[in-house]
């Protein structure tokens, strides 16, 4: 188990969170604006605002910050795959609980990869709102290339 250090140290079986928070209008509007999604249900008045499903990806960073306060590690991560299922809409003002687990860490073509599976629940009733599966490369350069670069 590598929780408590760098994200790059995480390993299969590591549990992240849960972390609770309240979804604010600012978060929904700001995320939608940054991604040019100018839909009224993302950027309108507070009543009726709903979470853009992709915002679940920033909950992964919330879990990283909670579980790995030392930061990313030596290399920048590269996102490889996003897989999100929305079971029910997530409304602004809801108290939410997000948790995750590292389900796989493996090497593919010389690169370390990691899969995290996450769930977002409504704290008030325990209902599952969003499921998310995230796959990342833990470094862009394959391990051998990185070793040679470090040695030169």
């Amino acid at each position: 188990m590598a929780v408590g250090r760098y994200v790059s140290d995480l390993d299969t079986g590591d549990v992240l969170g849960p972390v609770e928070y309240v979804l604010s209008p600012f978060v929904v509007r700001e995320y939608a604006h940054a991604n040019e999604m100018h839909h009224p249900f993302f950027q309108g008045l507070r009543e009726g605002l709903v979470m853009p499903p992709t915002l679940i990806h920033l909950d992964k960073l919330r879990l990283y910050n909670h579980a790995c306060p030392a930061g990313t590690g030596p290399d920048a991560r590269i996102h490889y795959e996003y897989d999100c299922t929305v079971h029910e809409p997530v409304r602004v003002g809801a108290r939410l609980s997000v948790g995750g687990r590292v389900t796989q860490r493996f090497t593919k073509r010389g690169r370390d990869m990691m899969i995290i599976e996450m769930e977002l629940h409504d704290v008030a009733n325990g209902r599952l709102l969003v499921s998310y599966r995230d796959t990342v490369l833990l470094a862009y350069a394959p391990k051998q290339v990185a070793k040679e670069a470090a040695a030169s």
Partner: protein
Amino acid sequence: MTNPRLPLPTGTEIRTAPRPMTRERMRWYVDAQPTIGADDGRIHTQPPTIHDDDAYARKNGLPGIIADGMISTNWIQGLLCDLFGEAVASRSRLRTKYIAPIYEDQIVIAAVRVTSVAHTMAGVTSYALDVWCEDDAGKMLTVGEALVHVA
């Protein structure tokens, strides 16, 4: 709110207007992350990333900054919202895979193609779609699938 273009028959293909992946667009996403994390109504920035700092990107083996993959996913999601409205945020699935880096000023077009349409007794129409982003030469950058249930 449902887009008046519905219903969409199988085979329908829809694309966004071309958008250049400018340095600013990359930085908007970079800055959004700590800003949303802080959730205090003010903008926050973060240390250099491969999405906003060329030197840092080169140090990580890249030729220069590249876009965060979530931008292309969000552009696909935005197109789905244009078509299906709030249903995308209510009951849906979206899977995307980043098969090529998107570099500064590369032109990006998000696209969807309806692969099947199913109607349920409850009055829900389920659209399955192929989704992708390509550049202006037709090179695939991001690929995936979506499922949207429209009540």
